[in-house]
């Protein structure tokens, strides 16, 4: 009897192990992921100079009443290059994105946007992580979703792609923007 219990326990253990590995393999589960503290809380300020116009700071007041994304990127981050094309598509679909260029060289960041296109409404320049820390950012790319009231309602750590968009973000913009929808 005790032997059967042990055997069943062993199979449960192996089963859970396999399940976790499978989810990790599909990118659905990341054991290093840190849950954000900001879901349901007002979005922190993005109080840094702009990438293209260092004399002005980022202003998100213009986005009140809309759903918008806050995307943290850097030229040193390979996944940011990979997701960039999809961000361009989101822009085409009418999704407003505020960018944060994190721990980067201004000239290199501008060069990357000149090469790949600029999907952002406005971009903050944050070489010493001041805004990144205020948002609890620990890697790039990370993307936050902010609602019409300026409250953070979702976050994704890692590159955006159509799959993740459908799962985590698309619904808010379908409701919000009607026919406008990202591919």
């Amino acid at each position: 009897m005790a032997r059967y219990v042990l055997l069943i326990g062993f199979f449960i253990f192996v089963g859970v192990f396999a399940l976790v590995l499978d989810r990790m393999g599909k990118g659905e589960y990341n054991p290093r992921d840190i849950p954000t503290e900001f879901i349901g809380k007002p979005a922190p300020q993005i109080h840094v100079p702009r990438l293209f116009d260092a004399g002005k700071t980022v202003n998100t007041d213009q986005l009140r009443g809309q759903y918008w994304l806050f995307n943290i990127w850097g030229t040193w981050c390979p996944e940011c290059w990979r997701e960039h094309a999809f961000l361009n598509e989101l822009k085409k679909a009418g999704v407003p994105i505020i960018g944060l260029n994190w721990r980067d060289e201004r000239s290199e960041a501008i060069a990357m946007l000149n090469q790949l296109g600029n999907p952002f409404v406005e971009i903050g320049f944050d070489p010493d992580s001041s805004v990144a820390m205020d948002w609890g950012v620990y890697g790039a790319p990370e993307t936050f979703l902010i609602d019409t009231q300026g409250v953070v309602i979702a976050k994704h750590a890692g590159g955006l792609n159509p799959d993740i968009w459908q799962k985590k973000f698309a619904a808010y913009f379908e409701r919000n923007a009607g026919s406008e929808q990202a591919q």
Partner: protein
Amino acid sequence: MKKLSSLLCIFLLGFSLASQAKVESREFANEQMEEDYNTLVAELRCLVCQNQNLADSNAELAQDMRSKVYSMLNEGKSKTEIADFMVARYGDFVLYRPPVKSSTFMLWFGPFIFLLIGAVIAISYVRRQSGSEQSGVDTQTRKRAHSLLDDE
């Protein structure tokens, strides 16, 4: 073989040197502040390299977090205020000694629970083993052995 082991030594030496992070030289107004700084960077976790604390990590974010800790101390913030500042942004995860509460219950007591399960399995295993030895001898044989022993 000798070559291999000396190569291994060199490799390990390089590894141990690499694991000592560059430490910025910082000036502190007083000893208390320096002590607070050292405690904080030892107890706050690097979020990029999650098995290191801020003090040991070379990651860029860890450098920036050390700078933040330093500048907050200079602004006269207390240790708790700085730890709270980090927890508000990164959660309990940023603490190497997270508070005991329902969400961290398994973290604190999980190992002991598993130790207990292991002990129960070990004890029941040992008991069964010694039990089977006894049952290997049936009562008749045992009676015979007793009578033989009593005869002597």
